[in-house]
């Protein structure tokens, strides 16, 4: 083996082993045939090209059809979940908001009426908690009030620094606080004293959070690309199952992430609080690669299939999804109505808790309906963005029956969610969601 060939074979290590076994000799032959006789080592251009090709074989999502976008969304979703995990981990031992308020209030004379609020400093990691004491009416000068507050803190066991410009630091058990005594702000209550505490993120969150976002994003990308590569080689039924699991998972996590981002400017920040939508999204995301791994491959050697018509497959997938959501919403409305008619109860009585929907349906059915119902409310209108164009394109390309079924399914996706916005439908969904 020449030195040049050894060099090329070393570069081929960038490719997955199975690929190397199937194509390695062929690629090396091509490389050597293209090399001028005096070449002794692979040029940098070839090296870069082979490493890039190998990494793409290993880690890239499949070519075309927006697979890369899906992989990016997976990366973002997992990065978000990882960040949520990092926040939960680092803030678990944090003293609660109530503790902070009480800590601020102990600095004040016991008889003073106290108002207060606490907020997270979103861009601060580590460092002291800032406590502002604002006096609306003050019997003494602010300087005297600062001295009094400091004395009370020392009596409470804090180690206090000197007062500078009505500001002093407190330390105890590694906790640091900076207390400032000020006049009342115009917007604050005109009586008594208000305590305004601003507390930072725990210092470890900065490195842990960055690591979580980077590693989570990477893991999400790799898992997404892997799932998509598997997805592409599954049977149409398998692909439908994978898509119907993965897409709601991504949508649920995405919706929670968007609502979290919308809340960022308000003090009450919640990231990954383990709410039901987040949990369902996470479960669906975990289930998707498992499905992709376990479903049988579509063997193209078995029987040469005609090239799949995307429109036909799309119509089948969209119709099935519409009908599943419609069935769930219809189940809610029908069970509500049937129960009401059967027992003679009115709508108010139905909501009283005496008629539990879980008594009517077996629990697995109830859970399945509830999941589809939840996802359907979010997804049905979005799905119309796909089914409407398909209705236009698909006319004449699929059988008239299939086209009419899709039309009915699309109409149901408008009518049924709309029914939920009527008072009756609203009561039914409240009753069912319990």
């Amino acid at each position: 083996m020449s030195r040049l060939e050894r060099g090329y074979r070393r570069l081929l290590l960038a490719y997955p082993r199975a690929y190397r076994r199937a194509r390695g000799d062929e690629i090396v032959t091509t490389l050597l045939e293209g090399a001028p006789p005096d070449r002794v080592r692979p040029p940098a251009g070839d090296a870069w090209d082979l490493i890039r090709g190998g990494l793409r074989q290993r880690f890239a999502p499949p070519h075309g059809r927006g697979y890369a976008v899906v992989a990016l969304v997976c990366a973002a979703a997992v990065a978000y979940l990882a960040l949520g995990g990092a926040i939960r981990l680092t803030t678990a031992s944090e003293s609660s908001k109530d503790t902070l308020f009480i800590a601020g209030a102990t600095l004040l004379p016991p008889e003073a009426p106290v108002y207060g609020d606490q907020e997270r400093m979103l861009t601060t990691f580590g460092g002291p908690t800032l406590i502002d004491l604002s006096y609306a009416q003050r019997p003494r000068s602010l300087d005297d009030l600062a001295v009094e507050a400091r004395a009370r803190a020392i009596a409470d066991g804090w180690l206090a620094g000197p007062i500078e410009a009505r500001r002093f630091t407190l330390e105890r058990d590694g906790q640091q606080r900076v207390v400032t005594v000020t006049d009342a702000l115009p917007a604050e209550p005109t009586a008594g004293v208000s305590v305004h505490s601003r507390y930072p993120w725990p210092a470890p969150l900065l490195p842990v959070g960055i690591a979580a976002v980077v590693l989570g994003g990477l893991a999400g990308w790799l898992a997404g690309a892997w799932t998509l590569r598997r997805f592409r080689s599954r049977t149409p039924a398998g692909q439908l199952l994978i898509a119907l699991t993965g897409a709601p998972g991504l949508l649920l996590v995405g919706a929670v992430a968007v609502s979290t981002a919308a809340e960022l400017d308000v003090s009450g920040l919640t990231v990954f609080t383990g709410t039901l939508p987040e949990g369902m999204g996470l479960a669906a995301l975990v289930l998707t690669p498992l499905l992709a791994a376990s479903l049988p491959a579509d063997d193209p050697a078995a029987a040469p299939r005609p090239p799949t018509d995307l429109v036909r497959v799309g119509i089948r997938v969209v119709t099935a999804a519409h009908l599943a959501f419609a069935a769930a919403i219809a189940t809610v409305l029908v069970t509500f109505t049937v129960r009401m008619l059967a027992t003679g109860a009115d709508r108010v009585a139905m909501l009283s808790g005496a008629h539990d929907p879980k008594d009517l349906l077996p629990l697995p059915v109830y859970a399945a309906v509830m999941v589809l119902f939840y996802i359907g409310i979010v997804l049905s209108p979005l799905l119309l963005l796909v089914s409407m164009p398909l209705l236009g394109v698909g006319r004449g390309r699929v059988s008239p029956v299939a086209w009419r079924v899709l039309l009915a399914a699309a109409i149901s996706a408008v009518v049924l969610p709309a029914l939920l916005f009527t008072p009756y439908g609203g009561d039914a969904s409240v009753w069912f969601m319990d």
Partner: protein
Amino acid sequence: MAMQEPTFFILTALAEQPLHGYGVIRAVTELSGGRITLRAGTLYAALDRLTEEGLLVVDREEAVDGRLRRYYRLTDDGGTALSAEVDRMRANAAMAAARLRNIRLAFGPTS
């Protein structure tokens, strides 16, 4: 959707006769007038994709002292895709040429 230029030249190279990897690289360089020089990693990524899309198949293999040449051949679908691309390019070119002629008629020097 327009075909990428390297893809177009790979299919064109294979339209006449089956070729092995280095044969494709040489033909593409020649056909593009030296503009496009494919490297092996890029070439095989493209060959994999086109094979998967059913535009190419492996025609035959030749193994000589540790070397392996695999010859690729255009399928019927590949021929169809290439001629569709040719039609598209021809239509575009004709349209552009017609517009240029109109401009010359309107503003060009009178002859």
